[in-house]
C-alpha cells in the first residue's frame, strides 16, 4: 500500500504536465456539469417558489355564522394535502384590499367583499388534479358560494415543471456522460504513458492488484482534485453572477460533498476500467 501510494505520487512528479492536463480536463468537464447543476437547481427552486403560491380561495356566503366557518376551517386543516388554512373575515378582506389597491381606497365600502377561506396545499400535492380534488371537497360546504384556484394557471405551471424535469434529466445525463467520456480518455492517456512500467511490472511477476493500485489511487486523487477545482470555479461564477446580475442559490454542503465524491468515483472507476482494459489487451 505504501509503495502504491509512493508510485501514485511519483507519477505526479514524473509527469507534471500530463497530470496537470488531466486534472484540468477533469476539472473543466465537472465544471460544465456543475454549472448545469446550478442552473437546474435555481430553476427548480424558482418553480417551487411560484408553486408555493398555489392557493385555493373559497368564498363564504353572506350571513354565514362565524362559528360554522371556523368549524369548517378546522376540518379542512385536517386534510392530508393541506398545509395551512386561514379564514379571512369580511373586515380583513376589506383591509387587505385597501392596502393592496391603495388608490381605489374610497371605492371600497364595508360589506362589499365576502369573507373567504384560503387554503394552501403542501408540496407534492399541487398537481392540477389534486388541487381540483380539494376544491371540490370544499365546495360541498353549503355556505361556500364560489371557489377560485386559477385552474388554467395551475395546469400551465404543472406542465412547465414536467418539461423542466425531463429536459433537466436528459441534459444532466448527457453532461454526465460527456464528462465521464472525457475523464476516461484522459485517464487512458495516463495509463498509456505508463505502459512501459506496467510491462516491467508484469514481467517481474507483480500481481494484478499490485499493478492496479497506484493507478486507482492516482485516478481517485485526480478526480477529487478536479472536483474541488470545479466546485471552486462554480462558486466563483455563482458569486460573480450574484454580485452583477442575480442573487441565486448555491449547492448545499451535502450536494457539494456529493459532487466531490462523484468526481473521485469517476476518477477511480475510470482508472480501474482503463487499467483493466490495458491489462487485458497486453496479457
Amino acid at each position, binding site marked *: 500500500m505504501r509503495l502504491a501510494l509512493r508510485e501514485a505520487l511519483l507519477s505526479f512528479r*514524473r509527469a507534471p504536465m500530463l497530470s496537470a492536463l488531466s486534472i484540468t480536463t477533469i476539472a473543466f468537464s465537472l465544471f460544465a456539469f456543475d454549472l448545469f447543476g446550478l442552473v437546474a437547481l435555481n430553476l427548480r427552486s424558482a418553480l417551487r417558489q411560484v408553486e408555493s403560491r398555489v392557493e385555493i380561495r373559497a368564498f363564504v356566503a353572506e350571513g354565514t355564522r362565524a362559528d360554522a366557518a371556523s368549524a369548517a376551517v378546522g376540518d379542512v386543516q385536517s386534510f392530508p394535502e393541506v398545509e395551512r388554512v386561514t379564514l379571512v373575515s369580511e373586515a380583513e378582506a376589506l383591509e387587505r384590499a385597501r392596502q393592496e389597491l391603495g388608490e381605489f381606497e374610497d371605492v371600497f365600502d364595508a360589506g362589499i367583499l365576502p369573507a373567504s377561506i384560503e387554503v394552501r396545499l403542501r408540496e407534492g400535492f399541487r398537481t392540477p388534479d389534486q388541487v381540483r380534488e380539494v376544491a371540490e371537497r370544499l365546495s360541498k360546504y353549503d355556505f361556500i358560494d364560489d371557489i377560485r384556484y386559477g385552474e388554467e394557471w395551475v395546469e400551465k405551471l404543472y406542465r412547465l415543471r414536467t418539461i423542466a424535469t425531463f429536459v433537466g434529466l436528459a441534459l444532466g445525463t448527457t453532461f454526465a456522460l460527456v464528462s465521464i467520456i472525457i475523464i476516461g480518455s484522459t485517464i487512458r492517456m495516463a495509463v498509456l504513458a505508463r505502459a*512501459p512500467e506496467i510491462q*516491467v511490472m508484469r*514481467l*517481474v*511477476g507483480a500481481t*494484478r492488484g*499490485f*499493478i492496479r493500485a497506484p493507478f486507482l489511487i492516482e485516478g481517485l486523487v485526480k478526480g477529487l482534485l478536479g472536483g474541488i477545482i470545479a466546485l471552486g470555479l462554480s462558486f466563483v461564477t455563482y458569486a460573480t453572477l450574484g454580485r452583477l446580475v442575480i442573487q441565486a442559490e448555491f449547492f448545499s454542503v451535502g450536494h457539494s460533498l456529493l459532487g466531490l465524491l462523484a468526481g473521485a468515483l469517476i476518477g477511480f472507476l475510470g482508472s480501474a476500467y482503463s487499467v483493466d482494459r490495458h491489462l487485458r489487451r497486453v*496479457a
Partner: protein
Amino acid sequence: MSAMVRFTRVTKQYPKGVTALDEVSFTLDRGEFTFLTGPSGAGKSSILKLIFVEERPTSGEVKVIGQSSVTLTPKKIPVLRRKLGVVFQDFRLLPDRTTAENIAFALEVTGAPPKRIDPKVMRVLEQVDLLAKADARPHELSGGEQQRVAIARALVNDPVLLLADEPTGNLDERSARSILDLLCEINRAGTAVLMATHDLDLVRATSFRTLELHHGRLVFDAGTMASGATAGVPGGSST
C-alpha cells in the same frame, strides 16, 4: 536431472492462421545453458513467451517448474514469473529511474520487504559489474551497460531460469561477447539460461546445447552436454 521446462507437441497459431510453432517438443533441465536459434520469424520469441506465459499454446502442453499451461490459472502467473528472469533486445528499462531504482523496482512490485531490497540490489550490481553506475539513468549508459542493468533486474529475484530474447541484437560485437560471458557466468552460478539469438558466431563460440527452429518446427537439437561444469568453453563445439 528433472525437466524444468517441458514442451509437449506444442502448437501456437496466431489469428489469421499464422502458425508460429508446429508440434514442438523438447525439455530443458535445471542449470542448463541452451541456445535457441533460427531465422527471424522461426518462432523463437513464441517459445520464450510461452515459457513466461505471455501467451498460451493453441494445443499441446507447456510445463514450467511444475506448472502446466493446461491448468495454470491467471492468478498463479505472477508467482511463476517470479521464478523466471527475462531480458529483451530492447532492454526495457524505465528511463526516468536510475540503475539501482530500475533493479529495486522488480523487488518492490513483488512485495519484497524494504529492508532486503538494498543489499540485494547491491549484490546483483556487483555481479554485473555496474556498482559504479548505480545512480546513472539509462540514457547515460551504453547499450551493453543497459543490457547488464536489465540482466541484473532479471536476476534480483533469484530466478531458476533466465530467458534472453536476442539480448545482443542491439549491441556491437564486443558488447555482445561480454553479455554472453556474463550469461555464462550466471549459468555457472546455477541459473539455467535459455538464449534466443540468430547470431551464429556467438553460438559457435560456445559448446552449449542448441535448439534450432525453422518455420515453427524444431529442426535441430544438438550439444546436449551438461552445462556449468564442462560447457562454456569458448571455441568448443559439440556438433
